[in-house]
């Protein structure tokens, strides 16, 4: 099962490697991992997308909590939540493809944020499936470069991850 784990960790050097090291040492999967400081500069928030049986997810939660610098861990995918990912994709945009690419970006509510005679950079946010669908929908041979941020997420309503 796929899980989205959010955690708050002391914003200290080496904190990221403690988390990534834990996953590799214990053989847990990381589908994506993102990290950035929060409004409180002493804390970073990390979002980890992982897969595993219930037992493994339970262990991941416990092991993360055991790390001395981890302040709080929440499996946000356990209840209603929102996930977003950012995609920047550079595509070939010449001739008839140019118009078609713009149309596809519009359909998926993407924005063209850079354009040259021959290329576009399209910015798009959404959940993983949406971005996957867009990448699948355009002509593969036109893709010059893709970059994705990995998933970030937040619980719906009053559910808050805070110190």
């Amino acid at each position, binding site marked *: 099962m796929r899980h989205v784990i959010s955690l708050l960790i002391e914003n200290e050097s*080496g904190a990221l*490697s*403690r988390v990534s090291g834990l996953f590799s*040492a214990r053989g847990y999967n990381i589908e994506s991992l993102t990290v950035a400081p929060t409004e409180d500069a002493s804390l970073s928030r990390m979002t980890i997308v992982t897969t595993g049986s219930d037992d493994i997810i*339970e262990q991941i939660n*416990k092991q993360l909590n*055991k790390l*001395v610098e*981890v*302040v709080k861990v929440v499996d946000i995918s356990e209840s209603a939540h929102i996930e977003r990912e950012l995609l920047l994709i550079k595509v070939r945009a010449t001739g008839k493809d140019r118009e078609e690419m713009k149309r596809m970006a519009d359909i998926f509510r993407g924005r063209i944020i850079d354009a040259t005679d021959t290329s576009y950079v399209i910015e798009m946010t959404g959940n993983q499936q949406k971005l996957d669908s867009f990448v699948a929908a355009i002509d593969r041979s036109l893709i010059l470069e893709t970059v994705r941020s990995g998933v970030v997420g937040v619980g719906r309503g009053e559910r808050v991850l805070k110190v």
Partner: protein
Amino acid sequence: MVLTGAEIVVRCLQEEKVEYVFGYPGGAVLFLYDELFKQDQVRHVLVRHEQAAVHAADGYARCTDRVGVALVTSGPGATNAVTGIATAYCDSIPLVIISGQVPTAAIGQDAFQEVDTVGITRPCVKHNYLVKDVRDIASTIRKAFYLAASGRPGPVLVDIPKDVCVQKCEFEYPREITMRSYNPVVKGHLGQIRKALQLLLEAERPMIYTGGGVILSDAAEKLTKLARLLGFPVTSTLMGLGGYPASDRQFVGMLGMHGTYEANMGMHYSDVLLAVGARFDDRVIGDPAHFGQEPRKIIHIDIDPSSISKRVKVDVPIVGNVADVLDELIRQVESGSARPKQEALDTWWKQIDEWRRRECLKYKNSDEIIKPQYVVEKLWEVTGGDAFVTSDVGQHQMWAAQYYKFEKPRRWLNSGGLGTMGVGLPYAMGAQLAHPGSPVACITGEASIQMCIQELSTCKQFRLPIKIVNLNNRYLGMVRQWQELFHGGRYSESYMDSLPDFAKLAEAYGHVGIRVDAPSDVEGALQEAFKRKNELVFLDFQVDQTENVYPMVQGGKGLTEMILSAEDL
């Protein structure tokens, strides 16, 4: 008061009432050593290899309730320390390791004797720090001691660059430590404890299964009290020995790969299992699927939530300090009127006694050749069962665990989790320094002892009258045993040729060496050794090369699938 970084480090150690620092100097820690030189409150023990510094600090911690401290230099000093750190980590031993680092400006420049110590040690410490600012030294060392000793204990490393040692700042040792990210649970959940007690009182075939957590939380007395209140059988892991008196009728012996028949059978066929500070590891329960075949309810007390339901699903988890939880359990038993089901318990004890009658630890003694088990039995007799006993890793370790009957906690020091050969002698050093007047024996083998034999020199310098009991079978005994049983008798690289004359070697270091060949000389030699109260005596027992450790559960097999003796093969 304005002090240099090096002065601050030493002041911090004094504030923590550190008795001994085990270490080895080098370029990056010169300023620290200079400050150690100028005072005499914290005593430094100069080892001959950094691995032994950490092992000795670890041994010191195991037989006291104190944090062990080691000091090593950067680069190779730190890498040599890694085995010691990992050993302590696997057995949850509280240590603070201070390592020197190249100056901050040189970090990342591939400087002389530079390694990423924090990176290398990260997977085998409870936590570690690189201190880049002199103003952080005091609070970091305070945190290190707090982290090492609280919650599930473990080693904490503090890496200090050379230039930080000469920077100056105002020194004040922080009294209080609060860490928002670290708040170990100590008291167990009352509701869970009530649930546990209910299960225990309904049990028909109960077993109390205890581990190193009992020792670490100094809960031996409480465990004994609870077990006697309930009248339940008690078994222990290798790490828990001494947590319950071995001579007590309720003690069924060590369990696991080389556990007793009655302990393993009792564990497997129990209907309610109370696990206390133990973690169901592979050497203890064998194949978890086989263990799960028998239905039973499991209560698990552990301070580390991640140890609970890791290998075996647990019915009543109780996160908390073993001593506190046992206290509460005792309180609830004593304040309530309900008592265990005596009739069922009597039947269960009958069954256990029947298993006991197999006398699984019986061995055939000989008049011609020394049996290793016999040496351990005699050591137990000669020391009145009250020595601090360390061991290395292998057959001799298992014989020590099986035949030296530990009555008290913190008397048995060995590497259970990592299984590090070479720990025996440095552990004995730590134990002897912590308990200067007490007998300390290091049960070892001719292979293990050679992994830290250079420490005979340290023992001379610090006049440590350790008794080394070398069970010399000229083989890597446990490897040879597995090769005999599971690899068609192909003894690949397990025979050691060209061994030194250990008695002479000991003498070369300035100690007493005695070689013992005949069974009739075993007791006399041991008595002679312990009579020499001020000397290290190296007893080199030439033992039966073919002796195997039984009972044995083959790796990956179930607990009840024991080989009880050579006849079972």
